């Protein structure tokens, strides 16, 4: 069973067997423009929900990615070091940022499902 949830900060988290894979949404990559560098958390790092987890740099600006849930980072997407443009070309696939072992599954309840996120983005105009 897998499930995908979204945050108001335009992150997605795909949940499979207690592990969440985190990235930014198509809307977010569109807003950022060409991604040229991503700084990822190291495996083993413990994050609390809302902590700054990664930095994503476009040509002109740097933005933070916040942990959508609490937990320990199990893996980072090292392929982004060589090819950060995957965040633009495949934000929900090859452009994933890191995996996290979800410490508090109840935190997922505060996130949006796909339909709710779609409505949220449309509401942003």
């Amino acid at each position, binding site marked *: 069973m897998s499930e995908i949830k979204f945050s108001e900060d335009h992150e997605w988290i795909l949940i499979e067997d207690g592990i969440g894979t985190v990235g930014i949404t198509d809307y977010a990559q569109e807003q950022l*423009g060409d991604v040229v*560098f991503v700084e990822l958390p190291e495996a083993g790092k413990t994050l609390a929900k809302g902590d700054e987890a990664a930095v994503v740099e476009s*040509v*002109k*600006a740097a933005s933070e990615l916040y942990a959508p849930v609490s937990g320990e980072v199990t893996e980072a997407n090292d392929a982004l070091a060589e090819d950060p443009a995957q965040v633009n070309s495949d934000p929900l696939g090859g452009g994933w940022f890191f995996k996290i072992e979800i410490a508090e599954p109840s935190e997922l309840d505060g996130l949006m499902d796909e339909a709710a996120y779609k409505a949220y983005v449309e509401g942003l105009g």
Partner: protein
Amino acid sequence: MTGEDAELQQTPLHDLHVALGGKMVAFAGYAMPVNYRDGIIKEHRHTRARAGLFDVSHMGQVRLHGAAAAEAMESLVPVDVTGLAANHQRYALFTSRTGGILDDLMITNAGDHLFLVVNAACKDQDFALLHDGLAGRCEVEELPGRALLAIQGPGASAALAALAPEAAALVFMTAARLDIDGADCFVTRSGYTGEDGFEISVPADRAEALARRLLEQDGVAPAGLGARDTLRLEAGLCLYGNDIDAGTTPVEASLVWALSKARRAEGARPGGFPGDEVILRQLAEGVARRRVGLRPEGRAPVREGAELIDEAERVVGKVTSGLFGPTVGGPVAMGYVETAHAKPGTALRALVRGRPQPLEVVRLPFVQQRYYRG
């Protein structure tokens, strides 16, 4: 549209930007396209390879009329204006009494008048400066009814020549008044990308038609402010408000080349511009800090505001512009460093999110300028 956007001014090309998928952002009080559908990197590369069309209508255009205009203008800039030949253009700086830079601008001798282009963000200040500083000596005519297009890149000349063949005969930093599809245009062979190209002053009501005609030409694609910024930084050119401002002097800014010989201590008309004592003294004695190019190692861009430290971890400078250079294929920056550290090859470190990132002081530009000199 949010309330904030509603207050922004629009250029005559606004509808075209929207039609072309421009991502509109606030810049100097105007709604301007930061990029179109292709994005900054593609627009940048296209400009270097073919030709990019930029809307720079937010910039201020002014005509100075009267026999004494050039002489009067020399009281505001450390530049030889009276010696500027007809149909020639020169880069200039408005200086302050303390030698700071109030704005950078282009001055063209259009024959029967001087034509100026100033930065959008400094427009009101500059217009006031011109009206006050030149009062009684020449007539200052602001040109809100004219748009300004820039076509830049190796394909710019052929594209513009298809509409106005005379344009191809111009060389870098020269000008001509040209009829383009019946529009009375003033064209200079110049720009701010490091590439060959033109800036075209056109009546506002003819601007969209001209832009559409240029976009129809082979190899011409729209490019936004984002690409303009990456192109100018790779070309080593200053962005007013970032790399130069009222707190930096032309000598500190490594813009000594812009200080005309005629206006220097040994020149025909030494001084006589605001801040002349400070600037001429700095020319003779040197300065404590200078603007330099900076090439960070690795892939992470080093942004404006990042502090620069030496081996002893002492702060010796600050980054004023930094981004990813698409042609360089990596991060590029410029900033001010203490003169002892300004030599090309000097190794420094920038503090990026609290961590030191190695970078090297390098000679500007990052990408060779390719102006057409005939």
